[in-house]
């Protein structure tokens, strides 16, 4: 028995040995200081560079085109650029599972920046930094900057929400106030969509009335349970009970806008669906003002965008930065707008006639004046505010104040 068990164990050890030898290859880091050597030097030319780039599935066509253009623009080196599909929302998880196997250049959503930087997963953007800061709109640069350091490239600036409406039902004048929208809907028997159970959207009420900060210890600071916050909550409840409001979000708007829905709050990703659905009646603008505590208050929102980062474990950081720089530069942002209708951060592209004529992007830009950067929002915020929103939609039985207190306590936990 013992002898035979020994044989089994011996074979196990042999296997372990084989595994050990495979991993002894230089790519798998062993513990201990190990400087990243960047073989490129400062002189360009004559190199073969392997780059891995992550992007979302629906942006692949654009990305491949950008890669071609980049190769054409840099004939001095041979670039082997491979792409893989990792959506912006998953980038943080995929990267942190194994940073060494992660992409050299990858797109991610701005609210992941703080975690990625905290995990030491990003290269500080130092090459051509001055130009990057000056060619992009300042809000976009701010989103990419943490503790005074530029940590990523702004790529898109259109993540946020605003009002879509059916011109044949709601006039441009009506669209300015929530009361008028709800009244018009009630007159015509149509409905209004404002997904207040989505924490991202609920925020617009609290942000209009309160402030959102980040403490030195990384904990969220909010004041949504004071009198102003309570007024916001009551206004939310009033809207939900107005008779014109319905639950649901994107999928319902795609289907029923113009049929049973007269107006709804959503983002740029809905623009094409809204144009098809509404045709000539298609219109979009900033969020309306709402009656909160007896005053007309402009509803706020979150805004942000997709960023491009360079992996701190990249072995070709210089080339990765050069590619990311190109990918988020003026020409490529113009191309991204042309191919996918993506909102630019580049000042020149944003000022171009085509972008200005885009109704959804114009509405986004208008709302951005009242919007709050999403980058510093912590996880505890989403759960608690979403929970409050759900309570509102389900019908609050107790006092809103005590719920607000609990919400704030959970956010600041």
């Amino acid at each position, binding site marked *: 028995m*013992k*002898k035979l068990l020994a044989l089994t164990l011996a074979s196990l050890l042999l296997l372990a*040995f084989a595994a*050990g030898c495979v991993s002894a290859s230089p790519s798998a*880091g062993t*513990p201990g200081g190990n400087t990243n050597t960047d073989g490129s030097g400062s002189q360009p030319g004559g190199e073969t560079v392997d780059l891995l780039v992550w992007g979302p599935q629906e942006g692949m066509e654009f990305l491949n085109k950008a890669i071609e253009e980049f190769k054409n623009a840099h004939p001095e080196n041979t670039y082997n650029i491979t792409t893989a599909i990792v959506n912006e929302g998953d980038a943080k998880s995929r990267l942190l599972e194994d940073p060494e196997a992660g992409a050299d250049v990858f797109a991610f959503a701005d609210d992941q920046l703080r975690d990625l930087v905290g995990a030491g997963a990003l290269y500080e953007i130092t090459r051509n930094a001055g130009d990057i800061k000056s060619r992009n709109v300042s809000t976009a640069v701010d989103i990419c900057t943490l503790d005074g350091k530029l940590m990523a490239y702004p790529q898109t600036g259109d993540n946020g929400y605003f009002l879509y409406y059916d011109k044949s039902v709601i006039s441009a004048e009506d669209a300015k106030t929530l009361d008028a929208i709800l009244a018009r809907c009630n007159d015509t028997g149509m409905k209004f969509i404002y997904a207040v159970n989505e924490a991202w959207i609920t925020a617009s009420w609290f942000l209009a009335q309160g402030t959102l900060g980040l403490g030195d210890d990384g904990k969220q600071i909010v004041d949504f349970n004071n009198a102003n916050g309570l007024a916001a909550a009551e206004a939310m409840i009033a809207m939900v009970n107005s008779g014109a409001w319905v639950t649901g979000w994107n999928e319902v708007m795609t289907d029923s806008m113009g049929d049973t829905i007269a107006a709804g709050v959503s983002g740029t990703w809905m623009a094409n669906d809204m144009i098809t659905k509404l045709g000539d009646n298609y219109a979009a603008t900033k969020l309306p003002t709402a009656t909160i505590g007896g005053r007309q208050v402009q509803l706020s929102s979150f805004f942000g965008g997709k960023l491009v980062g360079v992996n701190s474990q990249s072995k070709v950081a210089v080339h990765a930065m050069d590619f990311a720089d190109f990918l988020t530069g003026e020409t490529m942002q113009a191309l991204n707008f042309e191919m996918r209708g993506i909102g630019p951060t580049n000042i020149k592209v944003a000022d171009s006639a085509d972008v200005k004529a885009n109704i959804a992007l114009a509405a986004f830009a208008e709302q951005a004046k009242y919007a709050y950067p999403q980058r510093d929002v912590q996880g505890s915020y989403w759960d608690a505010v979403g929970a409050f929103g759900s309570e509102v939609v389900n019908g609050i039985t107790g006092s809103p104040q005590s719920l607000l207190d609990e919400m704030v306590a959970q956010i600041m936990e």
Partner: protein
Amino acid sequence: MGQSKAKVITGLNFAVMGAGCAARGQVAKGILLFAAQCSYICFMVFFGAGYLAGFRTLGVTEQTAAWNESLQINETIKGDNSMLILLFGILSLAVTALFIYLYIVNIRLGFKALQAEREGRRPPTFREDLRSLWNDKYHLVLLTLPAIGLLAFTVLPQIFMVCMAFTNFDKTHQPPGKLFTWVGFDNFKEIFWSNPRKSQTFLRILGWTLTWAVTATATCYFGGIALALLINKKGIRLKKMWRSFFVITIAVPQFVSLLLIRQFLNDNGTLNILLQNWGLIDQPIMFFRDYARQTVLFVNFWIGVPYTMLITTGILMNIPADLYESARMDGAGPFLTFRKITVPYMFFVTAPYLITQFVGNINNFNVIYLLTGGEPKSLDYYKAGKTDLLITWLYKQTVDEQDYKLASTLGIIIFIIIGAFSLLSFNLFAGGGKEENFQ
């Protein structure tokens, strides 16, 4: 062979594994043992030693960056990766434990060979050993491959997970940029008493998880039996067709069927539209808000019933006829027969299935995650919703919050609950004497 030579060989056997065997004619065995020793040394030198050295601290050098003027970049200077040190440290410890065991075996083999020689016996040859592998020791042959798979891909990762519960691995200690280290029982303290919000949420979710598991198991079990009885009833035609209708749902992957059911039952979903069109309701029924818990239980019923139906169909057809015969002789009516024979027999045969189902329901990730994602959210819970089970709460803690320490602590608690329950119930109802009875 002289006494001194035997001594030398015994001594040599301590330093060079397999020497004892090889010197006494068991060459193949000796070579294998020696190869094992060599591979262990190689493993440690090239791989294990570094990780083992850092295992106590889980790394000391944090990653930094240094300005490189010629490249104009802030070059990354890699530090230690606590996660890899932990994982591969455990691997190295495991391999070392195996090696020590092997070493002891080697010494024993050496002495046995020596003894055999003294008594003038011939130690078993390699061929004899091999032959016994196909017969007396056949379990070793059959279990080797499964054991390797389990050790590498189940046991090792699970030890890793257990260890994480004793570290401070979370968002603020995330490799590769930051280090994490051992913190003892701090995480358990936090869940159980130092953080009332977390412990309250934990207790509430635990309560719902148990309610869910009991209800879901019971409804599917009795529903499935009832359905099987109905289809098997005398006078029902096209039994096979009816059965097939229900079986179809098993074959559709759950991520598809659950997604569709979610759309179907949504506030503005197809069912609400139909009911409103038919004038049966004015306001949509909020399946995922007002009745979220009932809805997930019902959908789980939808998923689980066909399985139980299939299984009980098989069993019902095979209840020994003489049992019924004797019952009828005693004058029992159909209802009494059902209660006194069908039910107990059924319960007896399906006990292991029932226990597996219960355990599966405690860990029923798919139904909750794909159907509601734990929603509706509620302020009564900390970062969780009303339908969240411990397992989905745990998943959110890792994926959304990267709070690995909390998640693995939860994992251990779930494991203790389920492990204790299933060991107890299996050995009481399903294990033990029964297996011998059948043979």
